[in-house]
């Protein structure tokens, strides 16, 4: 290439620490960014990536102090700027997009006004010129301008709010865009649309992008260079493809190894189905008693599913697809309006107490949020032991033994039994939830997004644990998830849901390699197919999304991009 120009952003030995305790949260971080470049910072929670990014604009939270290092933007030192100079910098030269679309727009101010604010602050356009620019930008991001300007943020969905946020930031044509987990809180399909929009806008205006994320696959897809952070330090950085293919640092390798990939297909023995769901219909507001107004919204429109013993069936879909409702209905937490559920041949009606008791012993559930699924006032031992209440004939000593055995099975030791949930990490809490679910050796486990709230490396461990337990104890499993990548690793069969209906189902390989339904294809286009490269790294291949016929799709192998 030509002679290297001066970098747009230069961070040198940046160190940040918690003000009153001195603990370092960012430790001697150094990297550069050229104009127009797309660079990603990848790390798990506690890596310090968000704090480092915020420091670039001088927006560290008040509890954090810069204790060393330099930040230079376009040749000028940011920490040395006066407050007025910083205010000129923010918005006009450096823009930031935030993670949580629900809370990043002022709920009490109309959208039009919020968009105008930046323009008023940094430019000298006349009011109608401003309006024209705003309308143009809203069109570019796919929002109807007339409706939007006078509306309040809460009238828009999460994805649309994120587009508005992008519009607001890009209106000022900043030279650098900091994107802090911009799509994490969004649905899988919407995620991709928003990211593509963001990258497109950046290309339009030659804006450099610093993309901060825990999602390595997404970062790998769109960036030219990647920086990997762990516990406040940069462990490795380099051109994206090369870093993926030949990772040097052990942490990078761990990260790459933790990316979900297809496991070998298993043969599930044919047998009469353990769980047989027929024409299940669930309506909101269908709980006991009338709700007054009408039948309410229909969450499930006549679902048919069967699950064989020892089989892992994954149910995927976006929010509003009904997958969680399905899980809860099968677990007996919701009353269906119609249809039947059979377990081991027995029909689950509401009358027969013995049938329910038997079902409860044999069907257990693991929930998504380890913060919310464990009673904060109970110790780990009590939490796991509570499941044994319904099991007759256990002496105290036997109970204790079973509890310890269960804890060991999930990778915890007996000492953990006396701890409380808030003293454990997210991964440990989920292990406790799993221990609680399997201690009774159920024959069927429903797992509702069990790893969605976890860091990538922890996620990999938990999935491994789950698979090991499933092998050992042989329970059937219904695995509900929005994340197809995870599903690729764990499932034998896949069911895709949209708007309360099943749109596709089949064996895992069939659905992933030859998707029939358009929605399935859209979901698949968002996740990479991993191939291990020789040196402990991976090569990512992306499927192209195509509206072609099923036959054409079947004839074509995975589209190769990147």
């Amino acid at each position, binding site marked *: 290439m030509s002679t290297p120009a001066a970098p747009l952003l230069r961070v040198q030995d940046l160190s940040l620490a918690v003000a009153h305790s001195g603990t370092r949260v960012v430790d001697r971080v150094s990297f550069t960014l050229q104009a127009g470049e797309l660079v990603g910072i990848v790390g798990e929670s506690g890596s310090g990536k968000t704090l480092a990014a915020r420091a670039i604009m001088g927006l560290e939270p008040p509890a954090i102090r810069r204790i060393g290092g330099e930040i230079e933007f376009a040749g000028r030192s940011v920490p040395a700027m006066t407050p007025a100079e910083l*205010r000129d910098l*923010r918005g006009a030269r450096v823009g930031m997009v935030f993670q949580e679309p629900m809370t990043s*727009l002022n709920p009490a101010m109309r959208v039009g006004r919020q968009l105008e*604010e930046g323009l008023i*602050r940094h430019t000298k356009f006349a009011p109608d010129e401003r309006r024209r620019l705003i309308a143009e930008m809203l069109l570019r991001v796919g929002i109807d301008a007339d409706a939007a300007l006078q509306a309040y943020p*809460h009238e828009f969905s999460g994805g649309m709010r994120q587009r508005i946020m992008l519009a607001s930031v890009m209106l000022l044509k900043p030279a650098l865009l900091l994107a802090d987990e911009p799509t994490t809180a969004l649905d899988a399909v919407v995620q991709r649309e928003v990211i593509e929009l963001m990258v497109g806008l950046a290309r339009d205006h030659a804006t450099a992008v610093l993309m901060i994320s825990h999602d390595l696959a997404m970062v790998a897809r769109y960036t030219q260079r990647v920086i990997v952070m762990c516990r406040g330090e940069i462990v490795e950085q380099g051109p994206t493809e090369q870093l993926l293919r030949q990772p040097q640092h052990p942490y990078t390798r761990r990260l790459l190894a933790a990316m979900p990939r297809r496991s070998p297909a298993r043969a599930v023995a044919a047998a009469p189905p353990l769980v047989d769901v027929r024409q299940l219909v669930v309506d909101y507001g269908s709980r006991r008693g009338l709700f007054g107004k009408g039948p309410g919204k229909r969450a499930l429109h006549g679902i048919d599913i069967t699950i064989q013993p020892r089989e892992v069936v994954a149910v995927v879909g976006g929010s509003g697809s009904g997958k969680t409702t399905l899980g809860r209905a099968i677990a007996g937490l919701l009353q269906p309006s119609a249809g039947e559920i059979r377990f081991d041949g027995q029909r689950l009606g509401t009358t027969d107490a013995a049938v329910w008791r038997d079902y409860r012993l044999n069907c257990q559930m693991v929930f998504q949020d380890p913060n919310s699924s464990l009673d904060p006032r109970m110790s780990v031992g009590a939490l796991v032991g509570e499941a044994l209440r319904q099991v007759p004939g256990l002496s105290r000593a036997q109970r204790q033994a079973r509890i310890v055995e269960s804890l060991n099975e999930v990778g915890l030791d007996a000492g953990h039994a006396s701890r409380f949930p808030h003293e454990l990490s997210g991964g440990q809490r989920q292990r406790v939830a799993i221990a609680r679910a399997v201690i009774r050796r159920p024959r069927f486990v429903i797992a509702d997004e069990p790893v969605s709230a976890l860091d990538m490396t922890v996620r990999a461990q938990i999935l491994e644990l789950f698979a090991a337990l499933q092998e050992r104890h042989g329970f059937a499993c219904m695995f509900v998830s929005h994340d197809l990548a995870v599903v690729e690793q764990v499932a034998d069969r896949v069911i895709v849901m949209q708007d309360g209906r099943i749109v596709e189902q089949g064996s895992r390989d069939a659905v992933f390699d030859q998707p029939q339904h358009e929605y399935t294809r859209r979901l698949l286009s968002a996740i990479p197919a991993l191939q291990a490269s020789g040196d402990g790294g991976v090569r990512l291949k992306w499927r192209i999304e195509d509206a072609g016929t099923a036959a054409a799709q079947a004839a074509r192998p995975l589209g190769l991009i990147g």
Partner: protein
Amino acid sequence: MLGFIVKRLLMALPTLFIVAVSVFVLVRLVPGDPASLLLGDMATPSALADLQRRLGLDRSLPAQFGIWFSHVLQGDLGQSITSQQPVLPLVWDRFLVSGRLVIVAVFLAVLVAVPAGMIAAWRQNSLTDLVLVGTSTLLLSIPTFWLGLLILLLFGLKLGWLPVVGHVSFAQSPGHALMYMIMPVLTLFLHEIGVVMRMARASTLEVLRLDYITHARAKGLSEREVMWRHAFRNSFGPTWTLIGLVLGNLLGGIAVVETVFSIPGLGRLLVDSIFGRDYPVIQGCLLFVAFVYVVVNLVVDLLYPLFDPRVTAS
């Protein structure tokens, strides 16, 4: 929006109704013949019989309530035993006196306390914050009757600056009336600053943590613009609700301040009527104050969307 208003108005009606029922039942709980309770010991037998018929005491309790309620709706709250005057005008006059004090005091308190609370939140954990929080906690821990006594002691007795006892109505002499108002208003003002400042600080802290504040800063807005345009409106909601509660509370609790400064207000009326067993007045005061309280909270709720547009959506 219209739906929100109508819904809120409709919600207030059953509350008002049950309030009326409660007051009716409360007074009927007092042992003894209701008619002689309402007329007092000096009533003549014929007056008693007359009232018994008017109240419908020979009929069922719900019927009696119906009769009483219809009188209330027409503005007839009975007659005071001690002064022989109709209750409603009496209560209304006293209400004007008390209401004036309360509104002025709360208004001034909000004017001072909300900015102070926001500043305390802005400079959280600094010396300013500590001083402000300490002051507000101290102020709200001092009971209003003692604070009033101390102020009376200081400004009235020791320094002799302000008149100690009494009240002059605005109609007679505005200047004098103001002078008599200063000390009671000061008492209430100081106490309510403590209450309002804490809420303002707490709700501002909540708001400052949210992403849209950082986003506003990221746009390059100055701190003042961020606080005023973004933080204030969103944080004021809970404080606004609190103001409604405070106004209501003061309508009842002002009795102690009125006692200290010998002001003929609504609180004093209620207390005196309890001492004098003047049941029509007791009933009238309870009904009136509860009614005003419901209306005040209704107005507060109706104006809430100004601060948080999200409430109209649900």
